[in-house]
């Protein structure tokens, strides 16, 4: 149901491409409203149905992923619609300039006046002379041709030899393209390395396109292996939580009735009892999602880029961890939050980083709320704490001390989940 309802994005974008709705003015507002409604409905549904925490968290996470996909699809195509419009006006201008070869003085005046919309800066020339001579016309032609080439590059996918024809906006706005994209294990539809505004996705030097790198066959043995592993890992996680975590959690239920001081006294022991089980769960969850599920999805959708994470276990700084641990979401945040806030609101990079962390922390807190049904803000606080930690990591004192950085990182990862759970449960 929720999956199907996201399909409305396609007609919206089609309308934008045909210039019936302008992205800059109304398109994006429509999209944001839709996203908010979507999220709200999903959460309300879980509350209404009073689902237990596993189902709730699953649907909330799935909804968030879907939301990121829609947002990325909409905003990227919205941007491309702007580029497309510019391309069209540039091409008109170029046609006009070419018509100037008949060297009619009227036409040159046309050029001058017409140039204001296209933004080609020939003001300098026109101030000095009334008319344009042929050299200047050639220069302008050349500039426009270059810009046209840049726009075209941005609007089409970069093709490697043998990958087939390039996909060009707006021809990518098909139902099938969207359907495929929804199932891809990625949150960004086709970045373009050559773009002027949208940044390169870092990490693997694979070039995403309006068409992604694709495989040609499905390795069913691989799919079977990963699917079996999924159920196996889920089984392990259930056993660990049942036998190692649940007893401790039940203890905390009794503790909730006690005053705060006794709760604080029991707190360290609860914490220590939870450290190892949570470490296991943490590693299992990571393996489940980023190594098993995403790889199965990629294999089934012929998606060739399996780079879903970097070597985050080697992180010596929190910045490296944030980049490596979840590549799809990192790409999404990097492009649609970090760079978008810089280009749309002209904030500095530091502020953009804060905004990104803020959004991420809010989303994490939302998930915590749907898990524990309590609004406490511990995870929000800890995630925002990463900002000073990242800055601290950037100063010189950790340079060359990679092992120390790694030790500190792992200490944090070890203690944080247990700490958070204990905090949420007890306090």
């Amino acid at each position, binding site marked *: 149901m929720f999956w199907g309802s996201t399909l409305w994005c396609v007609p919206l974008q089609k309308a934008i491409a045909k210039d019936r709705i302008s992205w800059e003015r109304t398109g994006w507002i429509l999209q944001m409203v839709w996203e908010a409604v979507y999220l709200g409905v999903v959460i309300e549904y879980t509350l209404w149905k009073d689902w237990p925490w596993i189902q709730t968290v699953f649907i909330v996470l799935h909804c968030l992923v879907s939301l990121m996909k829609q947002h990325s699809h909409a905003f990227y195509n919205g941007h491309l619609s702007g580029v497309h419009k510019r391309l069209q006006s540039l091409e008109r201008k170029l046609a006009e300039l070419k018509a100037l070869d008949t060297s009619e003085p009227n036409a040159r005046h046309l050029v001058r006046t017409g140039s204001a919309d296209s933004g080609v800066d020939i003001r300098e020339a026109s101030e000095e002379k009334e008319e344009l001579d042929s050299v200047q016309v050639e220069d302008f032609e050349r500039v426009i041709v270059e810009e046209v080439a840049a726009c075209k590059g941005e609007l089409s996918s970069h093709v490697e030899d043998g990958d087939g024809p390039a996909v060009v906006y707006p021809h990518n706005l098909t139902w099938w393209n969207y359907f495929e994209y929804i199932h891809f294990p990625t949150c960004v539809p086709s970045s373009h390395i050559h773009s002027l505004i949208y940044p390169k996705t870092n990490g693997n030097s694979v070039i995403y396109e309006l068409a992604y790198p694709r495989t040609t066959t499905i390795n069913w043995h691989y799919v079977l292996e990963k699917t079996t592993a999924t159920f196996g890992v889920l089984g392990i996680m259930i056993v660990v939580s049942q036998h190692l975590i649940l007893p401790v959690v039940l203890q905390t239920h009794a503790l909730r009735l006690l005053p705060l001081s006794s709760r604080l006294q029991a707190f360290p022991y609860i914490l220590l009892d939870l450290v190892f089980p949570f470490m296991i769960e943490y590693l299992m969850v990571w393996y489940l999602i980023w190594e098993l599920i995403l790889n199965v999805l990629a294999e089934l959708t012929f998606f060739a880029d399996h780079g879903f994470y970097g070597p985050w276990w080697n992180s010596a700084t929190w910045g490296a961890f944030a980049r490596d641990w979840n590549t799809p979401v990192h790409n999404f945040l990097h492009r649609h939050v970090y760079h978008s806030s810089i280009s749309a609101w002209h904030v500095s990079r530091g502020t953009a980083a804060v905004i990104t962390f803020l959004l991420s922390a809010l989303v994490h807190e939302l998930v915590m709320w749907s898990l524990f049904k309590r609004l406490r803000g511990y995870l929000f606080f800890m995630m925002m704490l990463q900002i000073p930690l990242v800055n601290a990591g950037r100063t010189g004192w950790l340079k060359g001390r990679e*092992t120390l950085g790694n030790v500190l990182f*792992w200490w944090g990862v070890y203690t944080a989940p247990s700490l958070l759970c204990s905090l949420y449960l007890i306090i």
Partner: protein
Amino acid sequence: MESRSRLSTYSASTSADINNDPLENILRARSSNGTTRNLPEQSNGEAHLKPVPARLESEASSVLSSGRSTPIPEDAPPSARSIQHARRERRRRMFPTVDYESRVSHFDPQSQHRDFRGFFTLFWIGLFIMVLTTALRNLKDTRRVLRTSIFSMFTKAPLELAIADLFMFLSTIVCLPLQQAFSDKWTWGKSGYMLQHMLQAVWLAAWVYLPFHLEWQWTHQVFFTLHSLTMLMKMHSYSFYCGHLSECHKRLRALDENNTKVEPVEDADLRETLAFEVTSPSGRVSYPQNLTLYNFVDYLFCPTLCYELSYPRTDRVRWGKVAEKAAAVFGCIFLLTVTSEEFILPIMTEAAARLESVDAYLDIALILLESISLLLFPFMVTFLLVFLVIFEYVLGAFAEITCFADRHFYSDWWNSTDWLEFSREWNIPVHRFLQRHVYGASRRHMSRPVATLTTFLISALAHELVMFCITKKLRGYGFVCQMLQLPIIVVQRTEFMKSQKMFNNIMFWSSMIWGLSMISALYVLI
């Protein structure tokens, strides 16, 4: 320059191609003489394989010597000339050699294997938290931080252990005068090696018996026995290799009786081979100049069990690293003790108590199975810590102190897909020793499978000896399991199984985890 020209004239008679570049003569593979020479079978004391055609490596000889050597006088015997030539060469030796290279160990921060280094950090932090948790739980329950039954064992009679250990170490010195005697007066080949065997047997028996006689506890005894076994291997390698070299040296000298002008080609080649044999890989030392006290003591401290005339060395001792490794040794031993105290000993004690009150086989089996399953994790952690403490930290510390450059004491045994691979990778010093002195020696008399069997047999017996010292029980569980590896290896080497790498690795780990726990529980409880 003079030596080079002499060399080129020398080799002109034997190599088919002569280049203008004098170095080329030295470095080119001597394939023109590529027939395998069958040296007359030596006596049993020499454990070498058939000499292979000399294969020179095409590397610059500059690493071997400075290029400026003392010119030898005109009337020097041919053996001296050959030795000087050999100092510049690189080729396969008659006695199975160990190739040492300057390299760091796997877990060293400078190592190339850093893809999963974060998990190494994870391991240590996990252990640290384990200690913390245990300490806090103990504080809560018993008001004392840690249990001390095993810790207190360390503190009983440490001086006695230290003195005995020192004497054991010093008693190995008997090898040196023996070898000096073998180098000229006595012959190794005929009966010398028998003397050495007997000496070693008596030596080992004496030192293994001592802890029993003094009634030491198992911690002291196991340390002492392992140390004795290590010293035994060192003595054996030193003696047998030097014995072999004494034979080579004597034959080389014997060839001096030849008239070099009309010498047969075989003899000239033999001289080359022998000269190369008695020269060190670095080109700086020849037998018998190595038979000094300094060389012997240095070898005793080097973290290797195979004697070579020279090893690759680092420039200087980094005392910071030594301190770091020493601290790590004590840290690991502490962690081992805590693990044993808190997680192994209680289970064993309880199981032992319960076993006393039951008679039926089924009940015994159930108690055993339960103990084994509870011990799986602690023993796995113990195993990993023991591995690290010995092969990364103790050997690393000694390597640092002796400026020993080859720190490759283990490979990635955790990726093993069959038991033979595991045996090759998990303990490289012992593997090299066994390969050279046991397998190599056996191969002269037996086929490959039988030689492998013999090697495993000796290894299993040594392991069993250690278990006997720890538990004072002669049961043979470890022996059986280790010998069982051989038929398993046969299965693992079939075409089908070889391709199932992941499955093999899983089987390796499962049997490792389960096997350790099971063997220990069996020894202690039954």
